């Protein structure tokens, strides 16, 4: 049995849940959990003032029941266990997480999995900007782990990403993989302009139906039947992200870039 957190009433004020992780709740009583301070707007309040808490936290499972669009930092810095959100979640979901699993049934805000180091995040809906990206001013985005998004994503996905996998079933915004250092981003829908801008290393796999407008600082290396693609496809199927791998079997165009940076990035484009 999991611990269940639900909002007492709809609020228009953001709530920051940073630190309310399965590890922290695991050995606490419901009373202790209810007394935990959370930031509500600019005020520190007890969790119980805004949320109902029930169930049993000992198995490391947490459920957020309801629309948490205004909740920041769900699963931030989590190390183990699992978090399930029944509807939407706000920004900074899984910020800096090191391990464990997060599943959001609805949509999430910006900075999903930002600076995460390990673990897996699944989102059934769409996500905002800077998925797996760096926080403002940081030198690194995500350095490990997996982010799987069924819907669309915003701009700057994988900004300064260093390692790990981001897969997007829907469409991606501008500056996909902006300044990325390494890691892999897969987009199955369409991709807006400036993909790979400033990337040093890393892999972008863009399998959408229509080709994105690419930067002139990427160079065509030719057609490829690289084993990377079917391998990635099989992996995504094995984790239940896609049902069939047909699109990963077709030959692709390979480009290198961004030659304004190191130029060791790979960009795979479906025909």
């Amino acid at each position: 049995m999991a611990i269940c957190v639900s909002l007492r009433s709809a609020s228009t004020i953001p709530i920051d849940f940073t630190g309310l992780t399965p590890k922290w709740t695991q050995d606490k009583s419901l009373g202790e959990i209810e007394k935990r301070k959370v930031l509500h707007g600019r005020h520190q309040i007890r969790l119980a003032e805004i949320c109902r808490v029930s169930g049993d936290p000992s198995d490391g499972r947490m459920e957020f029941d309801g629309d948490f669009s205004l909740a920041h930092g769900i699963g931030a810095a989590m190390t183990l266990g699992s978090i399930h959100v029944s509807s939407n979640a706000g920004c900074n979901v899984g910020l800096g997480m090191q391990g464990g699993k997060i599943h959001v049934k609805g949509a999430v805000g910006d900075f999903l999995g930002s600076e995460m180091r390990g673990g897996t995040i699944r989102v059934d809906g769409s996500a905002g900007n800077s998925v797996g990206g760096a926080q403002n001013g940081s030198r690194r985005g995500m350095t490990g782990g997996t982010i799987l998004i069924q819907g669309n994503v915003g701009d700057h996905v994988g900004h300064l990403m260093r390692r790990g996998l981001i897969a997007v079933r829907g469409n991606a915004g501008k500056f996909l993989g902006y300044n990325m250092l390494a890691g892999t981003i897969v987009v199955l829908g369409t991709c807006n302009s400036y993909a790979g801008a400033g990337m040093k290393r890393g892999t972008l796999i863009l399998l959408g139906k229509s080709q994105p407008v690419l930067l002139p600082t990427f160079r065509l290396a030719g057609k490829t039947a690289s084993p990377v693609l079917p391998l990635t496809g099989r992996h995504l199927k094995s984790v239940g992200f896609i049902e069939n791998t047909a699109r990963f079997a077709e030959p692709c165009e390979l480009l290198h870039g961004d030659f304004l940076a190191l130029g060791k990035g790979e960009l795979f484009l479906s025909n």
Partner: protein
Amino acid sequence: MENNFTKICGGTLYDPTNGIDGEVRDLWLADGKIVAPPSDPHVRPARTIDASGLVVMPGGIDMHCHIAGPKVNAARKLRPDDRRDAEPVHRTATTRSGTMGSVPSTFATGYKYAALGYTTAFDAAVPPLLAAHAHAEFADTPCLDKGCYLLMGNNHYVMQSIRDKEPAKLRSFIGWLLSRGKGYAPKLVNPGGVEAWKHRDGSRSTGLDDTVPHFDVTPRQIISEVAQAAADLKLPHPVHIHCNQLGMPGNWRTTLETMQALENRCGHLTHIQFHSYGGGDADEGTSSSKVPQLADYINSHPQLTVDVGQVLFGETTSMTGDGPLGHFLANLYGSKWISSDVEMEAGCGISPIEYKNKSLIHALQWAIGLEWYLLVEDPWQVVMSTDHPNGGSFLAYPQIIRLLMDRTYRSDMLKSCHPDVTKRSSLADLDREYSLNDIAIITRAGPAKILGLADKGHLGPGAAADITIYTPDDDKETMFELPRMVIKAGEMVVEQGEIRSTPQGNILHVDADYDREVEPDIKAWFEDTYSVRWENYGVEG
């Protein structure tokens, strides 16, 4: 009998200015000043502070730091990453909230300085065009008296006056600029070199006799003419010099030439650590310490003073009026960077930097800083600084004090550094240890004297009642990082780390007596060149 005397009883005083080295004496205060004990022995003070067993010193004076103004605020904007993980300063009934990291927010800066026993601080690099910003931030930096030095070493009017051999114009301009920008002293940052860099990319290494493009003057001329003008204006702190070629291997020759160019005039060379390197060919791998040679010159020239600009290991933010230096650092470390061209006046470079003890260069910089403290014979000629935040935070001052007072601690830290440091510097051979009296000189009495602040840095009658009381401890870092009490102008500001009151503090600036006849000429040049109106330039009030 009604009176407003405060008496600090039984403390052990360290007041080098008045020749008091660890003597138990009482101190009487009234109206924000230190006063002579009342002649009537029956007078009882309205308030008594028991300082028996405690160490009493004048309040600390930081004569070179970067705490307010455009570059400091730009650094705050550049480094949200630096603040995010730093413990925030929470609001209390008496204090405001703030953020830390290498560039704390304004109010937090005031509180943290005060909590460290400092009562006065000078921002060392303010472009006159944006001096109003520095003063606006000063208004939000409580608990300290503060002032700023105005950047003049690359000012177009300064260089034109020198080229045209018009020392009277130069003198009046410096007086006008200090008054208009509410500055305390002229500051030369890489004199001529910033302007040269603006013309020619790559010319980071402007030497004393290189010509500044367009202006046809040399850094040597700028240094000696500004020093002379400042002497003629009888400024309390004539000229504060950040030498050319900061950080470059082999720059010690330029530093020595700068000292020589001052001839017999007074001058202060700042963050001298960054200017004391042997080696050459812009190859950092060849760097070594040339402190012994430079300190020799200082030891035989009492009119010259230095502050150190000690480097400490860890992450910080480099901020400087030396635009080319910022560019160099950002390229060297591949880090983010802000550069600013302050039109007719100055430049600016800001970039994050991390000093690592396993890096030969960084460890050498650390050792060279310590060599400076230990090789300048007269402590009145050397001042403690980290060039906050360039070499490290002002919060590291207690650690520097321990490094100077405890040679075992020092040699242990040296052992943790890159092993080649001992081959390239003399630090391992230096076993001098500072006394509390020496520390009182390099942190308060000395800077007060160098700055010409007659009522600061000492505990004699007439001095401002800026007093720090410490609990003695064998570990000097412990002793200095948590003063028992800090008193500012007679008011209790800090007790054992807790802020008790937040006085506004005074602005220290000079109203130089200059020849007003030159103003129309300055105005004509100004209206011709600046992006702001003459009436809107400078600081009101």
